[in-house]
């Protein structure tokens, strides 16, 4: 069963890794990705980003994708933590951990999950810029292409 958590608080990368693998001698590789808020967005300086989700639906959608990844890559464990609320440049946003017998499966599953999370997961982003502008982000075609590689809907 994947561990899915959506929260406003930060997550602890080391603690989540330990919780996933400790006491197990069958895990040969754990892939991991940590996404963070970047200050620069093209030529504009971002001052904050607010993430909104649909409580219940978002967790279920992520849980379903993580379960799909577990099956597809025979994962031995999987953790997705995603923050919501107002985040500042340098803040953590998302953590993906995928544990498997071998490295290739763990890294492919990590890529699959983060591509989907960053493009198809039920989140909405509102960005605030140093010039005072604030706007909801529109879906991006390039990200859709990245997720489409995996054949997910």
């Amino acid at each position, binding site marked *: 069963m994947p561990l899915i958590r959506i929260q406003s608080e930060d997550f602890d990368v080391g603690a989540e890794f330990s919780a996933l693998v400790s006491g197990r001698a069958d895990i040969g590789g754990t892939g991991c990705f940590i*996404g963070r808020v970047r200050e620069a967005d093209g030529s504009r300086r971002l001052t904050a980003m607010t*993430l*909104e989700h*649909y409580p*219940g*639906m978002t967790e*279920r959608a992520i849980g379903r994708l993580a379960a799909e990844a577990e099956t597809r890559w025979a994962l031995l464990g999987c953790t997705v933590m*995603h923050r919501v609320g107002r985040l500042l440049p340098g803040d953590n*946003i*998302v953590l993906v951990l995928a544990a498997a017998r071998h490295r290739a499966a763990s890294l492919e599953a990590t890529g699959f999950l983060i591509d989907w*999370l*960053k*493009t*198809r*997961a*039920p*989140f*909405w*982003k*509102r960005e605030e810029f140093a010039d005072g502008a604030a706007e*909801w*982000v*529109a*879906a*991006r075609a390039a*990200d859709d292409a990245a997720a489409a590689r995996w054949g997910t809907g």
Partner: protein
Amino acid sequence: MVRVLYFAWLRERVGRAEEALPLPAGVATVGALMAWLQERDPAHAAAFANSRLVRVAVNQEFADPDAPIGDGDEIAFFPPVTGG
């Protein structure tokens, strides 16, 4: 009663995050509910004006405008998701 939720800029334009309302007579699909809401209230009309930018979920599953709805359902309106 149905529970109707709004997210992101749809929430802002509608002016609320959530409302509970009796399912109006003759409203049996997502699309019919949208039309009814637009007719009732200018804020909803503005929020739903560009229907290409409106996505729907019924009971937390993505749904089409012709998806049936019934008493007790949770119907959510939101922009295309942008990911985390």
